[in-house]
């Protein structure tokens, strides 16, 4: 039986602001699952704390809403236990670049076969608009009317500095392109990092659709990291699309000497083990 978009809908009342970019991100996510013919029971989404996390009851599937900054390691734990599941770590720019930035770095380095979906709305929105590493430096924010004193982080540049195997950028007002990116990301065997430029009408109204429309441009896939870096650092345009992909590096589980040829998953293997053969080295 074909999977339908309705399979992913819930009847829980949504709490996002009107015009929030999260609506179309979820639309694209559901559409991608449908097009990949994945039933809700075959996917796992770990949610962070933030506006993105408040979407946990808007979508069907195996879902775990954990702690701020931790959706990535939680997703990795789930993936390692059962790699047959399609695992997505859903996180905002705040949780990803602040509380949980070490997890992002090591997930890319380890190349776990998961998808990290970063909602980049350029602020901590759920706590009413504090600055993040992606907020424009001069922009007045909560408690700092003269803008932030710190510099910024370009997500693409950070990710590409870590020798990733997949980096893509989407835009929340282009769910069609985002669906395609999500499908490619989920099919990628390794850690796929997808940054979504997201509209936040409440705390970042300056960066509205008109603002983005002038800057968004599609990029073709780049064959080298340095070309990809130049693309994401462009000061005039915000390039979207699959910007970099390396299919040659094995993912973490296929790099593990004692697991790579295993046909079973850790979740299938929980049973009593006779340890007698291990005791000789203790005699």
């Amino acid at each position: 039986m074909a999977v339908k978009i309705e399979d992913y809908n819930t009847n829980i009342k949504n709490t996002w602001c009107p015009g929030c970019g999260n609506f179309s991100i979820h639309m694209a996510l559901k559409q991608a699952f449908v097009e990949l013919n994945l039933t809700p029971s075959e996917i796992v989404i770990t949610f962070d704390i933030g506006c993105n996390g408040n979407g946990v009851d808007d979508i069907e599937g195996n879902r775990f809403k954990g702690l701020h900054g931790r959706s990535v390691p939680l997703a990795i734990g789930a993936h390692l236990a059962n790699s047959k599941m399609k695992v997505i770590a859903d996180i905002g720019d705040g949780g990803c670049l602040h509380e949980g930035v070490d997890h992002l770095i090591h997930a890319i380095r380890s190349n776990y076969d998961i998808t990290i979906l970063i909602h980049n709305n350029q602020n901590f929105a759920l706590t009413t608009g504090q600055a993040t590493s992606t907020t424009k430096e001069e922009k007045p924010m909560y408690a700092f009317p003269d803008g932030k004193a710190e510099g910024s982080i370009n997500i693409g540049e950070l990710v590409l500095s870590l020798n990733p195997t997949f980096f893509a950028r989407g835009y929340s007002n282009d769910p069609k392109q985002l669906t395609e990116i999500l499908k490619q990301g989920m099919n990628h065997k390794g850690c796929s990092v997808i940054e979504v430029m997201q509209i936040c009408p409440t705390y970042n109204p300056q960066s509205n659709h008109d603002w983005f429309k002038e800057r968004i441009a599609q990029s073709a896939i780049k064959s080298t990291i340095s070309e990809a870096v130049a693309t994401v650092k462009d000061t005039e345009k915000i390039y979207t699309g699959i910007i970099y992909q390396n299919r040659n590096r094995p993912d973490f589980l296929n790099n593990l000497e004692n697991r790579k040829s295993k046909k079973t998953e850790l979740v299938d293997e929980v049973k009593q083990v006779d340890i007698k053969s291990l005791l000789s080295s203790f005699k």
Partner: protein
Amino acid sequence: MKNRFAIKFAGQSGQGVNTLGELLAKSIKNSGYQTFAYREYPSIIKGGYASYQIDFSNTEILASTKQFNILVSLASEALHKYIFGLNKGGIVVHSVNDFDFTQEEIEYIKENKIEVVYIDIEAIAEENKAPKIMGNVILLSYVWSLLAFDLRVLEKVVKDTFKNKNIDMEAEIRCLKAGYSYEKPKGYNLNIDIPKVKGNWSNSLLLTANDAISLGAISAGCRAYYAYPMTPSTSILQTLGKTYMKTGMLVKQAESEITAAQLVMGSMYMGTRAFTATSGGGFDLMSETISCAGITETPLLIVLGQRSGPGTGVPTWTGASDLNAALYTGHGEFPRCVLSCSDANDAYELIQRAFNIAEKYQIPVILLTEKQSAESLFNVRDIPKAIKIERSLKEGKERYEITESGISPRWIPSKGKPTYLVNSDEHTPDGVSTEEPAEIVRMSEKRMRKLLTLKEDLPEPIYWGSKDAKKVFVGFGTTKNTILEVMKENEDIAYLQYQYIYPLKFEKILSLEEEGKSLILIENNQNGEFGQLVKKESGYEFKEKLFKFDSRPFFVEDILDFLKS
């Protein structure tokens, strides 16, 4: 004390003291004695002073004496440090060129009729065409000759230990023989008159509690181990890593303790068995995950290897001052279970029980060890019988169904199974977030009811010793071991051991008090954290207390002195 003998190997960190100690422990064990090996070492790679003490006896031996009969030292600092630990009539063997004892040390040596033997091990190694480092085994086999044990036993252990290492085995054996035949002080006789253990003791096992935890976890079907290195829990990573080709277990060094705990939670949620181990500082980092596992009702298992002091403290020394951290860490109110092991035997059992409890009750479980148990070598005849795996998985309509026992159905997310939402926001039975007061109360009460159900399920504390004993020590962890040693010659004392600390079953304490026993709280910490828990739960306050918090374990003499006073 009768029928026990102690040898201390000492030197700088990095000189091979551990290897010598392990070889000796194994060889003594293979000669038919029960052994206990205790390590002291600084938190540095080279220098300082480190030691490895082996106590042996004809019966089970679980703790060290402060004093010893033979001191072997490779370095001057360790000689000065440990010389006063020698018993009357003891012997010190060392390889330190141009070494001078202080006046005070000379007097101690004279007064206690201690023999001093210097061996130029480098020269002997050279004579035997062996590299300098093999001088170490010359000391080892010299000690072996002092003990008048069979050289073949030692030779076999050395051969087995180094068979896969790239060393000149023939040179090694020449050194062993040279050390064994090295001249002994005239008329010196150790007179070791300890009967041997009956039966073939050489097949018995030498295990740290960390080894036992690793083996117990493998036995219990644990399929993933995630950890960040931290003394004294680090060697679990080593034991599981060294065996992972055989077991197929996923062994992963995480980038932080936060990650390690989250990986465990993610894997347990997904339906496998996983755990992590750390010490106090790493445990602090895990506290948010413990709280998250509490509200999401996800099984979580953490081994907390205690060392002493806050902050970095005294990182390679022992203590039991993290009980409060285990009991109270994590924000909000949620049920948890805290266990404590004392030696290799109960570590093996408790890690298996811990998995069952974590899964059945869907709560965080913390298993306490101490440096003293985690890294000391216990000698056991065999590993106890494996404990049956109980996962208590059950498919249901709602993941957080309100039940009398507090336990809701939990099933493994998988293709074709009903999906559910696991939520760290307070939630209704279907997992959906709620801020409604009545719903909040209903769900909080359901969760907390698991604690009562669990308490009913937990075994009573273990009473060690004679029913007629007048004095009963009460405590947890390795304090049991030292009391059991003293008990061998003192039937007047007993020990009440708490392996299952929380939820606390305090009734036995009250009944012992009613029987007129004199109860003594014993803890390897400053404030008596277990005593505080007993008071909080039962109202009972211990009148007599014995605390030690100098980062050393309780030695046999500590108890003897206490009983005298």
